[in-house]
């Protein structure tokens, strides 16, 4: 019974994440950072590296949830999933040529991690991320397009709310949104 309830809680969290619930995302982010930081600091990383790796992992987790690639199996599955993505990202980095060039560490070193009771996840698909191209392109948009697209697609505000706040007509908000999407498409795949 208890387990069923906890998985239900996880499912609630997951649907909140899918709906971009800011409070849930924030709590998940803040509650799980310390553990990743400890892991990375113990394994030759710095604070800024811990933050970057964790944020990358957090985005990857978010994208996989959005794409229905994650199903919780126990009460802390999501937290474990996030931790493991971060851990894998850091381990990959340590093994990469980029890292080896700047470090004296030999092959076959041990990754120090006290937590051996983690659920293993299949992360094989995790590296294929076509949406990262779009993410990159998004950052090249003008600030107005960025704001408008963020408010509409991420914050899920209605065109009416957007029109009020940007102080434009609803029809013009709708057109602007379309033009911004066109710009983004051209950035992602220039004709």
């Amino acid at each position: 019974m208890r387990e069923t309830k906890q998985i239900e809680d996880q499912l609630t969290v997951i649907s909140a994440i899918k709906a971009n619930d800011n409070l849930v995302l924030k709590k998940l982010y803040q509650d799980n950072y310390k553990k990743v930081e400890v892991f990375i600091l113990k394994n030759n990383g710095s604070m800024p590296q811990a933050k970057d790796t964790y944020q990358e992992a957090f985005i990857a987790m978010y994208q996989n949830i959005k794409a229905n690639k994650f199903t919780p199996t126990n009460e802390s599955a999501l937290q474990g999933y996030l931790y493991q993505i971060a851990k894998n990202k850091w381990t990959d980095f340590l093994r990469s040529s980029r890292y080896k060039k700047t470090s004296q560490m030999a092959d076959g070193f041990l990754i120090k991690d006290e937590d051996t009771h983690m659920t293993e996840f299949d992360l094989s698909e995790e590296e294929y991320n076509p949406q990262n191209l779009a993410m990159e392109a998004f950052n090249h948009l003008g600030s107005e397009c960025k704001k408008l697209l963020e408010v509409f697609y991420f914050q899920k505000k209605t065109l009416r709310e957007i029109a009020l706040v940007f102080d434009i007509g609803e029809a013009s908000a709708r057109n602007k949104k379309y033009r911004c999407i066109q710009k983004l498409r051209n950035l992602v795949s220039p004709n």
Partner: protein
Amino acid sequence: MNPDNNITQEQLEQIERYLQDTMPDEQRRQFEHQLQSDKDFRLLVEDVKVMLLGVESASLKSNLEQFHDEMVPVRTLNESESSKTDIPTKKTPPKILKYLTAAAIVIFIGAFWLESRSSTTDRLYAKHFKPDPGLPTTMGATQNFKFYDAMVNYKQGEYEIAISKWETLLSSEQKNDTLHYFMGVAHLADGNEKKAIDYLQKLTENGSNSFKKETAYYLGLAYLKADNVEDAKKYLTFSETESAQQLLSELND
């Protein structure tokens, strides 16, 4: 990605409705049928899906910075400045402090009693309004001293003095968002929501304001205090801050 396959506004909105699951059954069946049979259409939908996930991910990414900053309170200049401003209060003779405390308690009890009779908006306003903690360190060099001097008053709750000092800077710093923002916030803290609305309203109309979310939040509060729930909701919706969302959900209850 499929560069040759241009998308029309109608197509985009149709795909959005499909992805957001807001499509009527009949349309949905047609849409899914086309997905099955039309390869170009399938690619187009996939393309839009990936692009929108990219937009959402990039938006989330920009929010992560804020999550991170809020997790570890930054105690740098701001903190040491505010402890400096505490010094004058420590000089206040203890007796006066006692009277002040007693007065505060009386006012508090009075407020509590009044609260039970006041309207929902007043109650919500009182519950949620906290003055902006102040921002003493980020002003430019020339007018820095005057601005900061008034900020000390502001942080001690001497809003009238702060306002009168800042007012002298207004003519020379017409375009200073920070100054206008604090004028608005100080007026609100001083209980003058009409003046606060004047200042903050102008700021929201100004596109590039560094306190955009905060401005919208305090403007929403000012409208709440003025008992204008509709405008309060409008600005709180745009503020996106946690406090705004909290207040908004209580307003909607």
